[in-house]
């Protein structure tokens, strides 16, 4: 039978990125950032909604990933991480969609923001796909058990 690996507890790159996202969400939620791009793109109060959801979903992903080794059933962690990744991708997609129509006073598109959010969006979508495959493998493995 084909072997499968649950990568959640060992994927340290994903954990670092989730922590960074949670940090970014926290900074924007508490209005500590000198960069006003998020406020400018979303306007108030949508910028607060976006940053709080970013903080909560990234925190949930950090919790799911770090708590996975202690769980008897890794499926719960995979489900939480999967939905956190979907939420993070949606939030970044929303941000990027608005960024494309947003221009600064000089009329320039925010190329850096678009680039970074695209990379993270692709990363979270890939991770969600990876977890989906792992869950399917886990389910098949369980079904094959007597």
């Amino acid at each position, binding site marked *: 039978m084909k072997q499968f690996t649950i990568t959640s507890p060992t994927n340290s790159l994903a954990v670092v990125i989730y922590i960074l996202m949670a940090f970014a969400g926290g900074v924007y939620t508490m209005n500590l950032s000198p960069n006003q791009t998020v406020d400018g793109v979303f306007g108030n*109060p949508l910028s607060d909604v976006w940053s*709080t959801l970013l903080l909560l979903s990234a925190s949930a992903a950090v919790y799911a990933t770090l708590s996975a080794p202690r769980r008897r059933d890794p499926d719960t962690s995979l489900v939480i991480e999967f939905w956190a990744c979907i939420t993070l991708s949606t939030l970044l997609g929303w941000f990027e969609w608005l960024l494309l129509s947003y221009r600064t006073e000089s009329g320039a598109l925010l190329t850096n923001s678009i680039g970074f959010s695209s990379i993270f969006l692709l990363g979270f979508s890939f991770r969600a796909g990876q977890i989906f495959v792992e869950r399917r493998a886990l389910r098949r493995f369980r079904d094959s058990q007597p």
Partner: protein
Amino acid sequence: MKFKAMLVKAASHGVAQVLGVILFLGGAGIGVSLLSAPESFLNYDKLTAAFGFASPVAWGIIFLAASTALVISVLIGPIYAQLPALMLGTVFIGFGLLSLIGGPSPMVWAFVALGWISVFTQVICWAEESREAVHHYQPH
């Protein structure tokens, strides 16, 4: 030991679920009010310090998310509700203590009281987990 026995008894009688539902009603009610009518909270001077930390909308989403997570987990099984109960407790107590900077008021103490009820719910859920662990233990 007597206190732990009392907690275990409370856990097996579904006290955690009842408290979880009450806390959900409280937390979700506050969350929805903060989202739909932030002005009524902003006009209350005593809460200025808490809203200097994060906006009413952000607080509203946090309250709503934490209380929903608590009620879902506590209804699935109290052993899963430990973290959500602790999170909601921290949010209630944090909001209350931040508001305390603006001066004490009955509203501040109400938030702190709800926070301690959440922490108590977490303790009951922990007792339920201990009880299940003992119940499932098979001696060799």
